[in-house]
């Protein structure tokens, strides 16, 4: 059975076709990664899957439910970290977890969750005093409170230092080992290559390539030895395909990050 089924999904904002007729599915227990430059339609897609936005066209089933109409049931089974996660300034990670537990009506071991996301040292620090990476980990911790079958991670490592990125990767691996499905969007190609079972590359609202990283390299690459997913991505998306938003690194960098 599939955790996520998407067919012919479309969503426009005025004349902008943010998502332009995409179809894909995510199997149970898979880490599935949506890749693409800024403005490709990743966040719109993920928000439709979470039930935060209503699609214009197409069918969406997440854990067998319609996210927009059956959001209330769906939200009990999924965990979400939105892009740039923020929380109440003067609450500690531990209090945040207990808050979510009370909202979901579940009993949790806050310390165990904090340990899982490697945040036990900052359990009692106010959210506003945490670093960017630690804030992101609070989001990760909260997404796990309701013991979700499926976790949505929207750019969970953007802006994090390398250690914090690795820590988040470890958590994603743990989630996978616990048979949870993960939908991950990211700018970082190495991240997808490292973690994802399957990848879909989006550009201008369309999926332009999908499959395992190895399949994508085999299908769309130049056949050169040692080619990375990143090389193929650049070839597919093209030099003009990115750089629409301000937070991309300077193009002069030798190993380009997206």
């Amino acid at each position, binding site marked *: 059975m599939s955790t996520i089924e998407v067919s012919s999904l479309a969503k426009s904002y005025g004349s902008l076709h943010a998502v332009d007729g995409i179809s894909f599915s995510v199997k149970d227990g898979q880490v599935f990664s949506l890749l693409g430059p800024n403005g490709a339609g990743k966040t719109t897609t993920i928000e439709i899957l979470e039930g*935060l936005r209503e699609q214009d066209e197409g069918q969406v089933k997440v854990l067998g439910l319609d996210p927009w109409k059956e959001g209330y049931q769906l939200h*009990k089974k999924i965990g979400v970290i*939105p892009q740039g996660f923020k929380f*109440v*300034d003067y609450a500690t990670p531990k*209090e945040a977890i207990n808050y979510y537990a009370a909202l979901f*009506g579940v009993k949790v071991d806050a310390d165990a969750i904090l340990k899982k996301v490697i945040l036990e040292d900052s359990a009692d620090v106010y959210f506003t005093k945490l670093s960017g990476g630690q804030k992101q980990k609070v989001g990760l911790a909260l997404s796990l409170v309701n013991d979700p079958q499926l976790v949505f991670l929207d750019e969970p490592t953007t802006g994090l230092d390398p250690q914090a990125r690795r820590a988040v990767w470890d958590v994603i691996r743990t989630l996978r080992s616990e048979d949870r499905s993960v939908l991950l969007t990211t700018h970082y190609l190495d991240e997808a290559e490292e973690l994802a079972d399957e990848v879909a590359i989006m550009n201008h609202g369309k999926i332009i390539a999908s499959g395992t990283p190895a399949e994508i390299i085999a299908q769309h690459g130049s056949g050169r030895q040692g080619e990375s997913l990143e090389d193929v991505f650049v070839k597919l998306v093209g030099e003009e395909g990115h750089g629409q938003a301000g937070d991309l690194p300077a193009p002069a960098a030798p190993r380009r990050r997206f």
Partner: protein
Amino acid sequence: MVSGRRIRADLTVFGRGYIRSRIGLFFSLIFPIILILLFGAIFSGSGSSRVPVYLQNNDNNSTASLGFIKALNSTNTMAITMVSSGVNFSQYLASHSGASGIVIPSGFQGDISARPPKSVSVTVYGNPASSTSGIVTGVTGAVVSAFNLRIANASAIVSTQSVSVASKTFKYIDYLIPGLVGFAVLTSPMFALVNISSQYKRDKIFKQLSLTPLTKTEWLISKITWYVFLTLISFVLMTGAGTLFFGAHITFAPGIIPFLLLGPFLFVSLGMLVGTVSKSVESAAVVGNLITFPMMFLSGTFFPVDTMPAYLQTVAHVLPLFYVIDGLNNVMLYGNYNAALTDVGVLVVLSLVVFGLAVRFFKWRED
């Protein structure tokens, strides 16, 4: 379905955050006390309530003119500053920014003691824009009348006697407190909710909460509960400060309670409505101020509504805060429970409508 457990959880996180941030606490607890101290000091001090008046005596300190000044002084309404008789009086007033002045003409004694007496005018200078000038004109007129009676060897037949409205003797501070409580009831929840709701929207905290079983109604009820709690505390603090420092008489009638509940209910909802329909934190603040400031001044907080021009009184009657302050006045000062009941009725209807609109337009998620 509304869940008490979720409301409690949200209330705990919100209330704790509120206390820890301290800024909100200042505005809801310390600021109301400052207001009472400030307004109490301005209006209750005995010395400062006298109107400053400049007086020029051009009658060579004659017995009659000195008697007239003594009579003015004995009214206890004026703080008289003498101006020497050679000076140009209107220039002197202007250069001292004086709003009121009195000139006793030369020949004052001679004219009033002539047989038959000649008519003579005491000149009163006043600034029509200054409320204190009216006091000076009135008091001088009264002293002049008394002089006239004496000269005519007559005695007053009709006289006035002052009785304070309401059953007890109230002080000025007692008239101030309902308005200032109303001010706190309005500003604390209104400013906070406009700010919080637009910020939560910007930071996508609402979006995130929409992914939990917490509902919009529960979230709003939690905020209302918190601000009712704060309002009750600030009411106790304000009346406490009024009693302690200015000897206010507060009747803790149960009739006060509905207003301390409905006020925050209404203004939390209104703040929420303004915050969520606005596009950004900045525009929310502007819209919030546009709604709050007129209400702050026109609902009887600092000035009684019935002293305002008729058209402003009409405006006041459409402002929700008016019914909070009018109701508090009716209960705390006049014991007029029938009128207070009407105020409660208006507030119940307004609160339910605004609450309903806030829940309706408050968007957890986008479409």
